[in-house]
């Protein structure tokens, strides 16, 4: 083959360009740490990586949601625990009052304590969390336990039965609230045969004052029912929190897997990239030194 000057120079330029391009590619991979830096690097991989990233972002959000619901449930549990101890106080007071040898002063003392517990329970029912009423269903801006006022107030539930259900995983939602009517058996929503807790306590107070031991004994049964109800609700809340914990653990595992998939898809193989760079550098330098020799070897240089 006849070799012309242009041939040598254009081939040299092409070879150097190709080599430079490969060096730039390897260098981009090394400096960005990614093997996919633009969609054309790997179109399918790009789509996969986008999909993985949005799944990871969704999981992060679900974990945040789980945290929010979990703290609300923790708050609910501790509030229910104080309802439970208030009911225990009522139980103890009722048992004390069931003793017929009690003096009038003693009865009035018990009645006064019952009033205190009543106030405490109403306040507990109207507990606020992050500026919202915890037990009002979806009517989070309305105090759910409303008093009729007057000397012997009656109480009613003015919240709704709305649930606060939050997604904590793909297709998994958990309810973050308990409605006040269930806690206090308003309108018989927990035990239809019993009166609500507030009515029950004010009846008990009257029975204590009048020394109606039979009535007190009946009320005690109803109070025990309420206690059982609250315990059941706490178990429910505990179960929900367990579910959140297990879902979160599962999500964390999934996220770890997705992250390693993402890394496999996107991340550069550093060893490979470094080797490529090294190889290309060697090729490039070899091409240049070969060119120096070839271009120097022209007849012109040897003619006098």
């Amino acid at each position, binding site marked *: *083959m*006849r*070799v*012309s*000057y*242009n*041939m040598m120079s*254009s*081939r040299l330029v*092409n070879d150097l360009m190709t080599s430079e391009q490969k060096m730039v590619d390897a260098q981009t991979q090394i400096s960005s740490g*990614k093997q*996919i830096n*633009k*969609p*054309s*690097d*790997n*179109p*399918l991989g*790009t*789509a996969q*990586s*986008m*999909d993985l*990233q*949005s799944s990871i*972002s*969704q999981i*992060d*959000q*679900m974990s*945040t*949601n789980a945290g*929010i*619901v979990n703290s609300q449930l923790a708050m609910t549990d501790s509030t229910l625990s104080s309802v439970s101890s208030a009911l225990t106080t009522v139980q103890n007071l009722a048992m004390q009052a069931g003793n017929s040898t009690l003096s009038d002063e003693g009865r009035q003392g018990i009645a006064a304590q019952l009033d205190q517990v009543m106030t405490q329970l109403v306040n507990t029912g109207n507990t606020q969390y*992050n500026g*919202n009423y915890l037990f*009002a*269903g*979806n*009517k*989070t*801006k*309305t105090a759910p336990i409303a008093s009729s006022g007057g000397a012997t107030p009656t109480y009613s539930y003015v919240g*709704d039965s*709305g649930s*606060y*259900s*939050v*997604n904590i995983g*793909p*297709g998994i*939602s958990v309810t973050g*609230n308990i409605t006040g009517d269930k806690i206090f058996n308003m309108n018989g929503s927990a035990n239809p045969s019993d009166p609500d807790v507030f009515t029950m306590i004010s009846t008990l107070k009257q029975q204590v004052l009048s020394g109606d031991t039979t009535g007190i004994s009946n009320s005690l049964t109803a109070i025990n029912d309420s206690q059982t109800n609250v315990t059941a609700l706490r178990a429910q809340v505990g179960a929900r929190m367990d579910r959140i914990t297990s879902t979160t653990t599962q999500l964390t595992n999934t996220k770890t897997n997705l992250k390693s998939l993402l890394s496999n898809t*996107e991340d550069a193989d550093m060893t490979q990239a470094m080797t490529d760079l090294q190889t290309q550098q060697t090729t490039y330098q070899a091409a240049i030194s070969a060119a120096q020799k070839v271009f120097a070897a*022209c*007849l*012109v240089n040897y*003619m006098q």
Partner: protein
Amino acid sequence: MSNLDINIIGSALSAQQQAMSVTAQNVANVNTQGYRRQEVTFGSVAPSADASLNLANGVPILGDGVTVSSVQRAQTSFLDRQILTGNQQYSYSDSMNQQLQQVEAAVNEPSDSGISSAMSDFWNAWSTLSTTPDSLAARNTVVQTGQTLADKIQSLYSTIGQVQSQCSQAIASDADQVNQMASQIADLNSQITKQVAAGQQPNDLMDQRDLLVEKVSKLLNVQVNQADNSGITLSVNGHCLVQGSISEQIGANTDGAGITTLVWSDDNKPVQVSGGEIGGLIQTRDTVLQGYKSTLNTFAQQLTTSVNTAHALGQDANGNPAGDFFTAGSDASNISVDSSIVASPALVAAANKNSAAGDNSVASAIAGLQNNSIPALGNQTLGAVYGQFTAQVGTDVSTSATNAQQSNLSLQQLTTQRDSISGVSLDEEMTNMTKFQQAYNAATRVFTVIDSMMNTIVNEMGVIGSAG
């Protein structure tokens, strides 16, 4: 020995000088684009047909010396034709690749600042709102992420539009170049025809013409035919561009939308371009980019419709029935969060209609849209559709790059082959130079010898008699 011998020497000196000047021309043009090496062919001059003139002192003369019978360009017609096709293919893919790379850069994936991550942020904002359905802060985040998403979609769409207008501008300016080159080729055609008719060999004009044809072939699909009178005919898909000394003009019409189309000035018919840079630009603008636009439009429309449908079931933070979240009827060119919601984020609905403020059904439902298959999108999620769009852009860029690379490789191969035939080799020229120089020197030496022989005859013979 006679004057004839001196004439032979004269012819040799003149021929070697001519050959030397061809060598000089070759060396001078070693780096000239489009220059083809010229070759000298020597021919011996046959003795005259008149036999009486061919006797010198009764001895027959064998020849009348040497002449330069031709100075030809090193011919590569077959390769030339293949190179034209290669140029068309390379420029077609390369121009497509150049334009699409701009779109690819605008797509900016995979990254944490592309549409995909803006979409995740948007769904996450709704999910956060579902955990705090009465929160104004969460509503602000929903509005802000919604607007960011909308802006990114709009910006990508407008970048595609800009690349389309760039294509149109490039098409118009390319057409301008084609027109200029076509008229230059027509000009060269008429000069070459004249010179050839006058018995000359206008090699340099032919080089210029070939170079121009090659440049035209980079811009559009052109067919070349050699005419008998050394002129060439260029045609584009059957329509004549250059014939002899006449060139047709291509007109670039730009419509109101900024779309440039090419028509022949003579009959106002569209120019059927299928190759070269113009072909690549037209294909990119009208098929590839238009396809991207329509995919983005469908995506934006479905995003708008599905969010709005879910949102319309709700009531805002003030307890009033909710309106549209994204401006109704938007596509990718104008998608945005409804202006009244931007002005007052309280209008974002989290709760179902006729429910209390703590309800989060609507916020949950909208956050859940990211996992919904949408029938109008072939039962795929919005995220999957956008992922496919990105993959499509990536595939188009890498395919056009691969095509360009491949045609460039075969083009290089062809060019190397052609350079091997028609390129100047300095070694060869130096060798030729020495050859011609030696021949010249030898001829002068012969002349010296003849001169000395003449001297012997004229000045030294018969000296005895003359001196007396």
